[in-house]
Every structure is written in C-alpha cells, then in structure tokens.
C-alpha cells in the first residue's frame, strides 16, 4: 500500500483508495509538520551518531531511513494513546513530546530510563525496551486494561484510548511477540502492532526471519494486517490512523508491516559493509522517505523558506542536545539503590550505607 511514489508524486495504489479520505483531510500545515518531524529527527539522529564518535554516548542506534514509518504512525496516534517503543523510535518519541536529550542520556548509559512515561508532557510514551520483543506483551496487557476500565470502545474517537507497539523484523521472531498476539486476539485489545521491517536485524536479512511477508503472520491470528510502503509518510499515517481508530472503536487489534530500510549501521558499533552491498544501500537511498516528502511538498508549492526553516530547527536541536549532553551529570552512586524497590528494603539500606561509608573512607586520603 502506497500513496506517494518514491519521486514524490501523489499516486495512491488501489489498496490505498479507502484511505484517500484520511489523507485528504490533512491540511498544508499538517503535511509540513510531518516533513518537519522527519527532517528534524534526522538532524538530531546524525548529531547523535557524531556524539557517539566523540565519546559522549556508549552507543547510538540511528533511526536513519525509518522516519516516514515512525512519523506517520506517531502523528496518527491521538493524544490519549499510549506508545510502547522498541529502541530506535526516535522520531516517535520526539513527536510525542519526549525531550530528545533523554534518549541521548539513555544511550550514554547515564540512566536506564530517561523520561517519566506518566508525566503528560511525554505523550504517554513508555520507555525504550532493549530485550527484543518484551514490550509487545506489555502493550497488550496495557490495552487489556483499557478494555477492563472502559477507557476505549465508546465510539468517541476523541476519548477512546488505544495502544501502538513498535517492533522490528528481527524481534518478530521472538516468542513474546507471538504470545502478545495470541492475547491481543483473545482479549480483542485496542492495539496496533506496528512492525518496522527495515530488512535487517543487525547482520541478518529478513529472509532469515521469514519465508514470506511478515504481514501474513499477524493475519494468521485473525488480526487484520496491512503491508505498507514504510518510506511513505502518508501511507504510514493513513494506515495507522484508520487502524487505530478501528481498534479504539472496539474492532480489536490491528497490525501494520511497514516495509522500510535501515539506511545506516545497526548501531555505531556495527559495520554493515561486512554483510550487505553498496548496491542495495544505493537502491534504498533512492527511496529516501524525506526526499520523497520534500518532493511532494515542493510539487504542492512549498517554498525554500519553509525548508530552510526546517533545516534551521534541525541544527538548533542538534546544537541544543550537543550542549546539554556534554554537561550531563553522572548519576549519584546512591541512585543505584534508590529505586530497585518501591518500598523499603533492608538490603538496599545496608548496601547504600556501606557504599557511602566506603567512598567516604577515600576522602582525605585514608583507605
């Protein structure tokens, strides 16, 4: 399913026809916002890669190339929706309100979290999850809770809540994803399974994970599934919007396979030349999601001031996070013990006290 051709021309494929209305309801500023989201996130992402090279981060997993899949789905989610990301959804997090520097702090390994998902300013964005697939049953359980609490399914799209969960083509092989789909189908959850098939799980091609389209798998559970051009932000938006609204209306879970490409390395520790060809990378470079949306907007008459403004926002964000992450304080050693439990715990108190005393013994030169 595609709405924009790689060259930016508006040419919905036949399967996209039912979604035309959703796309046509987008006004110029909404369309421009999606471009802005993608381009600014890319500037941030490239800055982050540089920061890792400079030793500011332990590691960086770029979102490069996946901006359309992410921004479309994130803009499709309504403010009351809850997002369960994996670890590469930088565009999603930013769109939902998470301060991007928090993601840097996480990848600096200055924190295991980064933001407070219960603080409304973070747009109900749950934390990144590093153990592949584990967030998927969490999303399903959360969505079950929406059902039990009657926070969904009333028919009022402005209020009914739904859940979006992100995972990758590699993670799709994990048993947790399967069990989450079993539960979702069984409890008819208001939930969108959003799979970014970026062709690679580190060095392993998607062909190793699946003989046919991954979309067939979710369909096998009775979960209606669309396979979309994941580099088309409008396709991602429209499909996500439709499915999320169906799910929130009580229709049960939905799934999207967004076919996209990890244009960069898996992370800054990775060297893709070991396992994939330049030709493949170049062929996908021609399908760059940002160039596509830019061409579309240009065709519609967006001017160079707009693009210059976006570039400037990107640079400003990059500069801002660069400064802030360089000043990022190391956590207090005592924080190791602070939140292991919510309630008092004898060992935590003992060990925190021991460490404090031990550290103090070095001050003033005594060992």
């Amino acid at each position, binding site marked *: 399913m595609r709405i924009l051709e790689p060259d930016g021309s508006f040419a919905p494929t036949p399967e996209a026809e039912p979604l035309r209305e959703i796309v046509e309801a987008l006004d110029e500023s909404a369309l421009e916002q999606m471009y802005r989201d993608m381009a600014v996130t890319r500037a941030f992402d490239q800055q982050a890669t540089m920061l890792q090279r400079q030793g500011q981060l332990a590691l960086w997993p770029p979102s490069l190339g996946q901006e359309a899949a992410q921004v479309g789905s994130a803009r499709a989610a309504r403010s009351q929706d809850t997002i369960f990301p994996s670890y590469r959804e930088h565009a999603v997090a930013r769109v939902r309100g998470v301060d991007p520097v928090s993601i840097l702090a996480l990848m600096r390994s200055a*924190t*295991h*979290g980064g933001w*407070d*998902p*219960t*603080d409304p300013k973070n747009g109900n964005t*749950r*934390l990144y999850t590093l*153990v592949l697939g*584990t967030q*998927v*049953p*969490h*999303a*399903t*359980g*959360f*969505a*079950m*809770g*929406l059902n*039990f*609490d009657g926070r969904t399914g009333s028919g009022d799209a402005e209020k009914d809540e739904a859940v979006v969960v992100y995972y990758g083509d590699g993670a799709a092989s994990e*048993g*947790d994803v399967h*069990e*989450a789909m*079993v*539960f979702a189908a*069984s409890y008819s959850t208001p939930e969108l399974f959003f799979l970014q098939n970026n062709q690679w799980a580190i060095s392993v091609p998607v062909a190793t994970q699946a003989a046919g389209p991954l979309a067939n798998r979710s369909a096998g559970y009775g979960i209606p599934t669309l396979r979309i051009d994941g580099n088309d932000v409008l396709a991602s938006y429209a499909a996500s919007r439709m499915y999320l609204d169906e799910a929130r209306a009580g229709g049960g879970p939905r799934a999207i396979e967004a076919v996209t490409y990890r244009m960069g390395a898996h992370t800054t520790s990775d060297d893709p030349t070991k396992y994939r060809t330049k030709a493949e990378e170049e062929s996908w470079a021609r399908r760059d999601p940002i160039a596509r949306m830019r061409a579309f907007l240009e065709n519609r008459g967006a001017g160079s001031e707009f693009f210059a403004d976006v570039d400037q926002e990107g640079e400003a964000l990059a500069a801002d996070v660069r400064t802030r992450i360089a000043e990022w304080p190391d956590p207090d050693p005592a*924080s190791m013990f*602070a*939140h*292991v*439990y*919510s*309630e008092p*715990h*004898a*060992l935590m108190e003992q060990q925190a006290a021991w460490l404090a005393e031990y550290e103090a013994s070095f001050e003033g030169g005594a060992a």
Partner: protein
Amino acid sequence: MTFETMPFARAMNAGLRRAMEENPRVMLMGEDIGKLGGVFRVTEHLQRDFGENRVLDTPLAEAGIVGSAIGLAMAGFRPVVEIQFDGFVFPAFDQITTQLAKLTNRHEGTISMPVVIRIPYGGHIGAIEHHQESPEAYFAHTPGLRVVSPSTPNDAYWMIQDAIASDDPVIFMEPKSRYWQKGEVDTDHRAAPLHASRVIRGGSDITLVGHGAMVSVLLQAASIAEGEGISCEVIDVRSLSPIDYDPIIDSVRSTGRMVWAQEAPGATSVGGEIASTVAERAFYSLEAPVMRVSGYDVPFPPAKLESFYLPDADRVLEAVDRALAF
C-alpha cells in the same frame, strides 16, 4: 477475635477474596483459574463472584501471562498471576527477570510494579516430572523481586494479602503439599510482617531454619530430638528475599549451632546464602559449621524416589547429630 480452622488452600482463597473485595484493582490471571478454580482449587468461585474481567482464564502462554500482567500493572491494576506448577514458570523467566524485576528501577521510581506471582512448589505429592520442584533460588538471586513462602494457613491468609498490597513484585511460593493441611486463621489480626522470620519453637541446643513445607519437617525433627534430650529452636524464615536475619543470628548466638533445610538442590541456593551470612555474622558463636540439608543436585526424581530425595526429619536429625558432634 475471629478464629477459623481451614486448610491452607482455603486460607489462600479467603485471602485472595478479601484482597479483591478491599481493592477493585486486584485481579487474578492464570491457566484454569476461572471456571475450574485452579488445579488446586485455590481460586475456586472467585471468577463466579468477581466476574471474568477480574479473574482471567488466560491463553496458555506463561510469558504472555506475565508480560500482559506487567502491562496491566502499568495501566493501574494489581495482577496476581498463578503459575500452574513450579516447573512451568520458566517460559516466563525472561519477563520476570529482565522486565518485572527491573521496571521500577528502569523507571527511576516513577512507576511501581505491584504484581504477585503465585507458584505452587515443592514435592511430597507423588506427581510426575516438573510438578514437584522448588525454584526459589532463581528468584532470590534476582534484584528487584521479593520472595516469600508461607507455611501455615494463617500465614497464607495474611501473607497473600500483604504481597498483593506490596507495590513491588512478589514471588509467592506456596508449598503445595500443605494445601490440605488445616490450621487456625485469625482473620482479625495480621500475621507477622511479610518479610519477618519467626521463631516458632524455642530451644537452646541448636537452631533449625527453613521455609514452606520444610517447617513442619523441622518441627517434627525438633520433637523427636526432644525425646533424645536435644533442645531445638525452630525458625520459619518466611521470606527468602529479603531475608530477616536478626532472629536467626540471635538464635545462633545462643545455641551455637544451626541446621538449614530446603527441598531445592543445594548448589548455589538459598541455603548457601543463609549459611554463609550466618557464618559471617555469628562467627565467634558458631561451634560447628552451619549444616545444610537439601535436595540432591539432581533433577527432582521420579515420585517413586521422592522420599529419598526430600529432606525428612531423619535427614534433619542426622545433620543435627553432625553439628552436635563437631
């Protein structure tokens, strides 16, 4: 005061029922816990009385059960999960160790994880493979979890309520062979705190410590020993993480000797933790090493051999003799 005599499983059921009555966010999840009331009938009638949204017969997928319980906790529920038998908790192990145990910490305290995982555990029921194991060590080693095990109906009744009231994940180990054992439940007065160990029989020559089904074995050993003129103090440790050491150390300081008993295999287990900590904290009081009695370091054997595998009063007494002879 309201005392009622009931079997352990009924006390569990009453405790769950009371927790559900007192807090509408408490819900139960598991395999066959609804219509059937659980294979041990611990949740009997609870689905009938609280409905299908509060007592869920889930699909058969333990990682899915614990994973969705985590999501439900994020949505403000207090899920109580039943794992059907000890040997079937392992498919959920990843969700328990990498997620449930760590999520509060990962969130830097902005959320809590009030999930209880009930595990009927241990031997003595003559069952087939995977149905008689004691996996507590795996959980006691995992930071972020709390691990407790009641040994009496009264503790069952209160500890399950305290576990549900805890904002932290609690692994709740139920000694399944005791489900049918009757005891008095005082429904008016809370039992000792969830993580307190308790001296349940006074004595002066040696301290016997254990949990769950081992507690009655220790009491039996103590009364046999009494006949031989040996006075045993018996402690029900009740909580395996954290462990309440003070009553144990106090006792060992006075008796100078200790035997620990557990059903689980001995290697790298709770027994080693307790023995080495007691050795550290009561070094000068110990007149013999802490003796550990445990299952052997083999898979739980076919039930026809369980009487050889499981520590009984004789095995405990053999260790008592060794400690006294030291």
